[in-house]
């Protein structure tokens, strides 16, 4: 039995830890491969959302490389994601593939269900070793997330252009090739140490941008055309509201904790959307935009794949939030045809506009009381 699994951003690092620690045989599709993406697109219905096409591409690649078992997790709900599995299995079977399909709905995942699904893989393994593998994988999710968060802080302030990218590229290469929790742990620690030693301009004040939107695209740097890196290298600090850890937290950990308080961002969305759920993570897009547009960020970027229903609904409200709170919101809709050049132009124009606004704000303040003018222009 050989397992394969689809990519979503940096989730592969933790999945690898889990499978390695359990001692299971698996094949991981290449990270960020245009070729697998193309195969996915070619075999998907035209109007399915982009995440579907990418995941299908990964599955085909996995099955072509000796895998016979597909592992897929989703968070359920009123959106198409819940039906990805049904359609994909059908497509793959009619392409002639034979395989085992294991589906996890993280919103309802119980130990029993996990054990039933993974049962055949876990024979002969002690409960303790299984729990240990799960804990290590869980730790990795959050550690990876923290590393990327740190890289976003450093990148926009680095003095030597490209240093952060280089460290992160090396880390990613290691994460893809080394095996086992210990080695991943070491790679993480090293990368963190190196990032902390990057020389930064402490007086530089970057424009701050919060990223909201559909979770797959937001957290998948390949499909979002490396938006975090691009903005960071333009001298903008990016906060991504939709990381993989966020997803695990919302759909898995929260579900297991009996203490059930309404999410802060769902609360914040209520003036605009009088309901708790509009499918996918649409309600969080609205809530986070509202929460983060009261001065803590200079601009908001919503990002989603073409035809994404929850985000189209959310987009309707963002104009209203922008009008009310006065923070610029830009929406980026991605599909397989999105060109890099036009994309960069839009990002640059947005960052320039935010920087201009921020400078003006400082000038206004300066006239009232002389303060030290922070450096807003990027150094390199």
């Amino acid at each position: 039995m050989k397992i394969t699994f689809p990519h979503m951003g940096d989730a592969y690092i933790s999945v690898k830890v889990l499978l390695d620690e359990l001692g299971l045989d698996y094949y991981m599709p290449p990270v960020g491969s245009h070729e697998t993406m193309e195969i996915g697109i070619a075999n998907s219905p035209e109007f399915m959302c982009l995440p579907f096409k990418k995941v299908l591409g990964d599955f085909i690649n996995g099955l072509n490389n000796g895998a016979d078992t597909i592992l897929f997790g989703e968070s359920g709900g009123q959106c198409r994601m819940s039906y990805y599995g049904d359609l994909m299995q059908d497509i793959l079977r009619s392409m002639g593939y034979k395989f085992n399909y294991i589906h996890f709905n993280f919103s309802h995942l119980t130990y029993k269900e996990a054990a039933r699904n993974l049962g055949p893989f876990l024979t002969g393994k002690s409960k303790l070793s299984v729990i240990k593998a799960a804990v290590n994988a869980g730790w990795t999710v959050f550690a990876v997330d923290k590393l990327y968060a740190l890289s976003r802080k450093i990148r926009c302030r680095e003095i030597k252009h490209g240093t952060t990218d280089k460290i992160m590229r090396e880390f990613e290469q290691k994460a893809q090739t080394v095996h086992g929790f210990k080695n991943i742990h070491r790679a993480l620690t090293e990368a963190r140490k190196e990032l902390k030693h990057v020389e930064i301009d402490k007086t530089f004040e970057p424009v701050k941008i919060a990223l909201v939107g559909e979770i797959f695209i937001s957290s998948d740097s390949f499909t979002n055309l490396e938006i975090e890196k691009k903005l960071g290298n333009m001298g903008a600090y990016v906060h991504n509201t939709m990381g993989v850890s966020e997803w695990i937290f919302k759909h898995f950990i929260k579900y297991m904790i009996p203490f059930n308080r309404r999410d802060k961002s769902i609360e914040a969305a209520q003036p605009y959307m009088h309901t708790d759920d509009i499918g996918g993570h649409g309600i969080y897009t609205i809530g986070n935009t509202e929460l983060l547009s009261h001065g803590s960020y200079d601009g908001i970027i919503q990002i989603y794949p073409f035809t994404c229903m929850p985000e189209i609904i959310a987009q309707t409200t963002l104009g209203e939030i922008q009008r009310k709170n006065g923070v610029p919101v830009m929406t980026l809709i991605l599909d397989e045809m999105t060109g890099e050049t036009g994309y960069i132009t839009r990002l640059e124009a947005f960052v320039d506009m935010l920087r201009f606004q921020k400078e003006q704000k400082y000038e206004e303040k300066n006239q009232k009381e002389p303060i030290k003018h922070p450096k807003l222009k990027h150094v390199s």
Partner: protein
Amino acid sequence: MNQILKHAKPQKSNSDITVGLPSSMMFYAHGELWEDFFSKLGCHVEKSGPTSREILNRGVSLCSSEVCMPVKVFTGHVDALAKRTDYVFIPRYISMGRHEMDCPKFCGLPDMVRINLHNKVNLMEVDIDFDKGTEKTKASLGSISNTLGIDYETVKNIFVNSVQNKLDTDMKVGSVEPGIKNMPSIAVLGHPYMIYDEMLSMGLISKLKQKNFQVLTPNSLTRNVRRSHLPIFKNRNFYELGSDILGSASAFLELPQVKGMIYLSPFACGIDSLVTEFIERHLHNTEKNMPFMKITVDEHTGEAGFDTRLEAFLDMIED
């Protein structure tokens, strides 16, 4: 001063209150039930009538371009009513029954419309989320009772009799059109607000009738038939409209008089991207060789091109 003015304003009695019902989206399925509901509450009911070019254009100009055409058209209908009614009614359909759910856009519809009309419309809404229960519905009936000044129990009873019970029977039986005749037929598939809207469907149903075809739609079958023929998602949560169409398509395969199927889909509809794919796969798997055509329309679709495709399809069937 404000206080005095407020009191000085003559209290409207309910028969003076006009409630607007947009003749679009799910009003093709449940319009009569809601009309009955508001009439029994003593309100004057006003409908926006068939979609016109003006309504369509207005909707397009009010919404962002990403929104699907039916939501744009719906917004146009609400806009038309906003000026001549006191309230416009928009139900928030989340789920119509056990294992049924609705397109996410139905869940956000009242809010999308309110914002696209710049908050310049008084909305009334009823939330329907029957997969989870009736709690949300009760809360929204409560605010209708406040708005109209009618006690909650009365509102609830009228709702149960006019809407809920009928929805229940609809969920169980389904409306049946007068018996299906044994004559050459075309099955027209799609959401009710696509296939029954003369404007959006470019008169597809009348055009087929003119050519002497019997036209069958999901409404020609009972709900039982539609559900029992589902090739997938039996007893699992799926989109209600999706199940209706999927089940119908597979039921029509068994009727020898059905010569072909036409699926009318709005551009980039998320639900249809799944449903049309499942139908095509099912047709393929059953090896029935049923002619199937998917026509995608948006606000820019020209009638001439539409007619040409239709002619070509019918020619192929008649050969």
